[in-house]
């Protein structure tokens, strides 16, 4: 399998070995990966809760989106950067980990769900936001996002037990 041998090469580069073998660096990156949850998933959850009217129900959806979603982008960047470093450090094992593969699949699904919202519900948001009623599809998209991210967290935690 060419990708597996590439992972083998990757984790044996001095950069990867340096991260893996550092008593300070590796836990620090792991911790930062988790702290990034607050700025990425934490903010997206607030938007999801608004779509479901479970938080900020008195505010228009458009305002909650504009206040929280752009703010989550640096969080997602930090999440991705630290995740990438953790992958590089243990590429061979991580690539073979089935929880990790499932997690990646769900991340793609989370992305598609966000894209669906942008394409299907965002263009007419001004209209339905004024009426105060969130379309069923948009609510479903919010609920789906909550469930997907909860599963991503669970898979991320569980994969560490299989490394």
């Amino acid at each position: 399998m060419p990708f597996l041998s590439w992972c083998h090469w990757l984790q044996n580069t001095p950069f990867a070995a340096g991260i893996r073998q550092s008593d300070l660096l590796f836990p620090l990156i792991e911790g930062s990966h988790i702290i990034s949850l607050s700025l990425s998933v934490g903010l997206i959850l607030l938007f999801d809760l608004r779509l479901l009217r479970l938080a900020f129900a008195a505010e228009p959806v458009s305002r909650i989106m504009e206040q929280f979603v752009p703010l989550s982008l640096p969080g997602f960047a930090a999440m991705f950067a630290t995740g990438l470093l953790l992958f590089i450090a243990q590429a061979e094992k991580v690539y073979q980990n089935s929880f990790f593969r499932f997690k990646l699949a769900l991340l793609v699904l989370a992305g598609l769900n966000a894209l669906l919202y942008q394409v299907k519900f965002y263009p007419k948001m001004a209209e339905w936001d004024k009426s105060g009623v969130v379309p069923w599809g948009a609510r479903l998209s919010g609920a789906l996002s909550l469930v997907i991210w909860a599963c991503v967290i669970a898979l991320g935690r569980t994969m560490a037990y299989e490394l």
Partner: protein
Amino acid sequence: MSLQQIWEWSYSSKTIDILRNAKYAIPLIQSFHLFGLTLVLGSTVVFNLRLLGLGVNRLSMPAITSQLWRLMVGGLLLSVTTGILVFLPDPARYAANTAFKTKLVILLAAILFHFTVFRKVVRADKPPRRAAMVAAVSLTLWFCVGWAGRAIAFLG
């Protein structure tokens, strides 16, 4: 109940034994622990970015507080409860772990700060001049709880 008694009870209890031996029990509980952390850190970050003037400027402080305070407390309760469930199957290991002990101290400081100084600032009619300082302390404390928590698995 002394620590010694918690030890003896935890190592003899059949319920705790199930947690200890079921293959995915601990990672599952820890997943809820992290979900609680996401709620705690997520809402704390929103409060603090607002106090620092770095974002969320179009929502009023009372609106943020009325919505996020309960979410933060709910997340904290979830994290503390699941944290205890992770601790009980192996108290000896955690009691000897430097990162765990450090985390507990910082956590206590963070909770204490949150429900006194921080609470007062986010409920003030006008953010006081020291709001930015309070936000910096709050973020530092909660982020250190996260770092120390993840370090438990790596440091003896």
